[in-house]
């Protein structure tokens, strides 16, 4: 390749033109031979910009650590979520709930013992290991976050896509539904639903599934608004005229041509809402609306603080779960913000 062609090209930077970014496959292969020229696909550019953002990388690392702690941690940690521990008065040994029952009769429950070598964060009122509950509680929070976001994405993409593409009465109906749902005050609604669940006798084990579905049914509106908005503007673009001219089926036009174009925005929205859903779930669990005992959740673990004795003498029982929520939500927000900057360079640093 001679010098003139290289000179004519603009040096590649974050604001490189779309032509370069979308260089055909044949150009990309010889990227090393092209005198320092580097060709990247749009996704490679996004990933590159993302990793240049320090806060985003810190967030990502924190998330990986959190995930390992919650999902891989219990595999290596000897105690389970609800197992209770006893203390043998005679021998001074610690007994587990599954030890033979004769020894347990004469032993005492290890209730709220301070942090020690065997129980790094101490034990709860019921003599359960705190660190192990922290791991299982994190599982709940993270799973709730992902399931709810998945639900709201599915609902939001389908309904927002239909509203944006068909317009007219479809748009009217969907958007009125969005208006109605977003006008209902959220906290009273959750309180009502929780009262409903308690009186219908739904067991704590299933309450969490109901909670997830409900959160999904409420929060799809943000996604729907966003998808509809971007489809309204994308619909007028030339590639859509081409799609119209070729005569593709509407379903393919929506889901193969329009939705993929909203993908960068969708990913950002999804990441940021992961953070807010986890915050929401923990708030609900704190109020006793979400995940119920005996199952652990970071939110219901912090709610122990309502007991003045626990607040004063046992910060090891309520500070760690609170910090876990803070770190996880913070990390999702850092990553989401980094993704936004990376997908939209114009927004960089704003």
């Amino acid at each position, binding site marked *: 390749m001679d010098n003139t062609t290289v000179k004519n090209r603009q040096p590649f930077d974050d604001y490189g033109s779309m032509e370069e970014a979308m260089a055909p496959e044949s150009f990309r292969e010889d990227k090393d031979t092209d005198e320092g020229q580097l060709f990247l696909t749009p996704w490679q550019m996004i990933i590159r910009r993302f990793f240049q953002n320090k*806060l985003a990388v810190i967030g990502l690392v924190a998330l990986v650590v959190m995930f390992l702690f919650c999902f891989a941690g219990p595999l290596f940690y000897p105690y389970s979520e609800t197992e209770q521990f006893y203390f043998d008065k005679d021998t001074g040994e610690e007994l587990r709930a599954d030890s033979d029952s004769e020894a347990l009769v004469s032993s005492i429950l290890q209730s709220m013992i301070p942090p020690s070598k065997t129980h790094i964060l101490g034990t709860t009122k019921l003599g359960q290991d705190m660190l192990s509950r922290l791991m299982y509680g994190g599982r709940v929070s993270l799973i709730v976050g992902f399931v709810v976001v998945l639900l709201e994405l599915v609902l939001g993409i389908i309904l927002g896509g239909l509203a944006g593409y068909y317009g007219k009465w479809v748009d009217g109906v969907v958007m*009125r539904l969005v*208006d*109605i749902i*977003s*006008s*209902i*005050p959220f*906290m*009273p*609604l959750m*309180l*009502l*639903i929780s*009262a*409903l669940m308690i*009186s*219908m006798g739904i067991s704590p084990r299933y309450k969490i599934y109901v909670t997830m579905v409900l959160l999904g049914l409420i929060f799809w509106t943000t996604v729907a608004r966003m998808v509809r908005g971007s489809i309204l503007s994308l619909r007028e673009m030339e590639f859509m005229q081409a799609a119209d001219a070729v005569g593709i089926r509407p379903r393919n036009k929506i889901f193969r041509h329009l939705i993929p174009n909203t993908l960068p925005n969708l990913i950002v929205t999804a990441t940021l809402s992961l*953070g807010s859903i986890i*915050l929401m779930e*923990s*708030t609900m669990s*704190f*109020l006793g609306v979400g995940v119920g005992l005996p199952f652990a959740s970071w*939110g219901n673990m*912090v*709610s122990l*603080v*309502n007991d*003045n004795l626990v*607040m*004063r003498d046992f*910060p090891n029982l*309520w*500070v760690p779960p*609170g910090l876990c*929520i*803070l770190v996880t*939500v*913070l990390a999702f*927000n*850092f990553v989401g*913000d980094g993704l936004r900057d990376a997908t939209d360079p114009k*927004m960089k*640093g*704003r």
Partner: protein
Amino acid sequence: MRQYIIRRVLISLLVLLGVSMLLYALVRSMPADFVTISTSTSTRMTDEMRDALRASYGLDKSIPAGYVNWLIKALQGDLGNSLIHARPVTEVISGKIGITFGISALALLFELLIGIPLGILAARKRNTATDYTITIFVFLGISVPSFFLAALLKYWFGFYGLNILPTAGLVDARAIYNGFSIAKLLDYARHLIMPITVFTFVSMGEWLRYTRSNMIETIGSDYVRTARAKGVPEHKVIYSHAFRNTLIPIVTLLGASLPSLFSGAIITENLFGIPGMGSMLLEASQKGDVPLLMAACMFLAVCTVVGYLISDILYAVVDPRIRLS
């Protein structure tokens, strides 16, 4: 413009009708209603007496019939009596709303007073240590669970910590004040320090981020460069040229934050023992007080709808480039 407003108001009415139907269905479908809960400890109550009570409260009708009944009365301005308080719901709500509104408005004031100047500062010192510090501060505020922050503050400053701030209520229970006095005002202030700190810290981030990103945009625009080129002093460029344009989205956001002024934060009010809308809603939903719940929730829904409407209209008022249609 007028046509736009009329159309929006009509749509809003439709939305409110939908909201009220959904809410009524939810409120009434609780199997344990007010009568069951309030008479559960009494052994002398018979089922007949309970049914008679239900009839007198209007809880014996089916859900659709009850809804139509509620709607007709509500449209005539009669929202019914609260079952718990045995007073008209409007009276109950107006007794609580002052406290919540006062606290929320005060918190909003602090959010604006701290958030906007910090946002401007961050925009001016973009990509410096100051900017990063402010950004991390904002993210902390957005991400911290309000109940955890409240608990930490109580732990550090409350009775079991440094013991310098009261942790519950609005006034010292042992103090007696006759009429208005400075001492009473100070007592209120001392009780409100922690709740308002929580409110402010948690919701300040939004204002700050908005201000920052919009300031960065306007500072980079041509007319600001022109102003600088012709030698306008820097503080004048920032505050009277650039900041004026930043006000547009802030004013819009202000309209949309109207409902939050009345709804209160259930968690914060609950943790600090403030007798406002939040704790009223909590009690009403636990005891199945249908009229009170309906009235309070509908009031909040109206606030939300009106808030959106105001923010759209304000948008056109502050920015003459925007034409509503």
